[in-house]
């Protein structure tokens, strides 16, 4: 493998480019019109345009991406996450074009992409699933039939899209009376998002934790599970804070969950990186939820506590290497890691998207800090894509230490010109229940619904006074003299001026 095309953008494209560099492999970027000057294009060895800015016309264009791969002479394709990462047609198109797809087989993607087929695979592997329907309820299934099935499962229950993901086509139903309306809404949402209106039903676990197990599988029959990730802190069914290990998982429970996850993967002959998601009930019982057949956004927390470079292993597995890691070491976390997903959204204003130019950027550094980012000073955050601009990860000797470092890192992190979710994370990390590990997937909704939780930032009179001082001093020193005395003249500027005079 000499050259890898990365069929993605943003921080994950940058992450994969770095893995290519570490292995001495060439990295080929693709870009849409608005991403011409994006960081992944700047860092890559080669870059190929694949179309206009709308994802459907560029990053989702299988033909354009395969074409770019052929023209560049790449021999493999890494899909990242999102876009075409879980599209079996794309994986098959790569194979047909003689390109190595760095991920599972198209067959595994198709199988685990169907939520009901995935549930059946889990049952076959002897892993408990949330009680619910084993067969999809297609568009033809009448409301009356769905009501009968729902009555058997019991309320409250979750109505989910068979082809679902990202919270789309998902509804909570607390009684039979609510079911018909919820069914209509979920079906129409699923139809427009995935082109498939089929749904299924699951009993609703009231206050579960979302725990997931990272896996790697090679082409020689080895599947290895990793220490769990805790992903219960979610907003609108999207993870926002992840950590490893989970406070709720004892070493004995870890053995059970990781063995169960590996059993599901072995049942379907899974290869490359994947993740099994579980719901963990307050009584310690756990249920298979779904499998993600790709690299996860939150993979860095696992890398931090195991020392394993997951993206590098994806590449090594794809080129046929044996997974010769020590299985035991992957289940014993080295201390603690936590991640915050930094979004270009204004948390003080209903999480309104905040695209635009990044006027200034100060990235945190120091012990135990990792910033996986696609942003740079002067760069644009376009309106067309997911608003995540970076992931901030910290490592500490224990959870308290990792959290303290995260607080420090967030206070150093400045993204100027656009608004970000940094204040939202400062608010979460100051919460007593979060600090004590008392939370489940309803945490954010409960906390944000509490009266008095209107503003996230603690800004007292002294901060306001200093902000006024800063603004006044800025304007005063800028206007007082053409070149303020405090600002040294750059030697580069002088050189530039000398150049211009020649």
């Amino acid at each position, binding site marked *: 493998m000499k050259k890898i095309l990365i069929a993605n953008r943003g921080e994950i494209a940058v992450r994969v480019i770095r893995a290519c560099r570490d292995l001495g492999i060439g990295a080929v970027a693709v870009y849409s019109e608005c991403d011409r000057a994006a960081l992944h294009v700047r860092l890559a060895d080669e870059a190929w345009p694949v179309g206009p800015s709308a994802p459907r016309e560029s990053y989702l264009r299988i033909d354009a991406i395969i074409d770019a791969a052929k023209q560049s002479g790449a021999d493999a394709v890494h899909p990242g996450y999102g876009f075409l990462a879980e599209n079996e047609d794309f994986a098959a198109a790569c194979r047909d074009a003689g390109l190595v797809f760095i991920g599972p087989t198209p067959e595994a993607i198709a199988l685990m992409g169907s939520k009901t087929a995935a549930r059946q695979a889990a049952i076959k592997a002897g892993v408990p699933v949330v009680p619910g329907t084993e067969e999809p309820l297609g568009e033809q299934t009448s409301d009356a039939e769905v009501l009968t099935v729902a009555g058997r499962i019991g309320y409250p229950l979750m109505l989910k899209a068979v082809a679902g993901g990202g919270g789309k086509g998902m509804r909570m139903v607390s009684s039979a009376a609510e079911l018909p309306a919820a069914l209509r809404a979920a079906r129409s949402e699923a139809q427009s998002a995935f082109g498939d209106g089929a749904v299924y039903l699951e009993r609703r676990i009231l206050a579960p934790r979302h725990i997931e197990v990272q896996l790697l599988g090679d082409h020689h029959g080895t599947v290895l599970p990793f220490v769990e990730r805790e992903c219960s802190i979610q907003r609108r069914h999207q993870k926002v804070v992840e950590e490893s290990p989970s406070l709720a998982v004892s070493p004995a429970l870890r053995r059970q969950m990781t063995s169960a996850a590996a059993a599901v993967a072995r049942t379907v002959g899974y290869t490359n990186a994947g993740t099994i998601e579980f719901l963990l009930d307050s009584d310690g019982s756990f249920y298979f939820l779904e499998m993600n057949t790709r690299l996860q956004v939150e993979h860095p927390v696992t890398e931090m506590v195991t020392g394993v470079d997951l993206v590098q292993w994806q590449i090594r597995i794809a080129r046929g290497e044996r997974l010769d890691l020590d299985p035991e070491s992957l289940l014993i976390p080295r201390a603690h890691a936590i991640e915050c997903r930094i979004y270009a959204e204004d948390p003080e204003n209903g999480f*309104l998207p905040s*695209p635009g130019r990044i006027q200034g950027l100060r990235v945190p550094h120091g012990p135990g800090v990792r910033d996986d980012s696609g942003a740079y000073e002067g760069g644009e955050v376009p309106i067309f894509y997911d608003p995540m601009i970076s992931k901030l990860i910290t490592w500490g000797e224990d959870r308290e230490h990792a959290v303290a470092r995260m607080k420090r890192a967030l206070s150093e992190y400045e993204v100027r010109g656009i608004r970000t979710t940094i204040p939202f994370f400062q608010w979460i990390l100051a919460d007593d229940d979060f600090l004590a590990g008392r939370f489940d997937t309803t945490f954010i909704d409960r906390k944000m619904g509490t009266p008095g939780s209107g503003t996230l930032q603690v800004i007292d009179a002294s901060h306001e006074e200093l*902000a*006024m001082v800063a603004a006044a001093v800025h304007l005063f020193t800028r206007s007082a003299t053409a070149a303020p005395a405090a600002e040294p003249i750059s030697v580069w500027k002088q050189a530039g001026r000398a150049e211009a005079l020649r």
Partner: protein
Amino acid sequence: MIYEIAVGQGAHLVSVTRQGTLLHVAIGSRTLVVDARRVGDMTLSLLVAPADGSAPVTSVDASLATQRAAGDFDVHLAGRVIPVQVRQAGGFGRQKKAGAAVGAGPQRILAPMPGKIVRVLVKAGDEVKARQGLVVVEAMKMENELRAARDGRVRDVSVAEGQSVDAGATLMVVE
């Protein structure tokens, strides 16, 4: 130089004078002595102490980002983002006295980004409460509800469902 600066719930007159290498910044009855070094186009290192010596010198690293309206800044300091609005003294107009709540008068609801109007939730003449949803704009794959900042009555609705809007376009006025 005197500036009128709105921050949080209040507006204040802030005067800046040069005293040798230092700046004296007066806000109300308080005077702060500031040693300011510009360390970037929009970044200042400030050493701030009250003129009366009542508190030790504080080191403040402050960076500013311009906002859409001239004179509006986000000030980043101490791990916080603090929006301020700066006008020449008297610039906030007669209707607002220093110290009065910022943002009296009609509120123009502006598109915060380019996008598409998904739903218009109110019509002209409707009474609305603070934080009530007014209009839903879709951008970045998400639907976003724009809300009223305070109680009022909807005056003009200038957009219809399905319409595309540019950033900064006036969608409606609430007074």
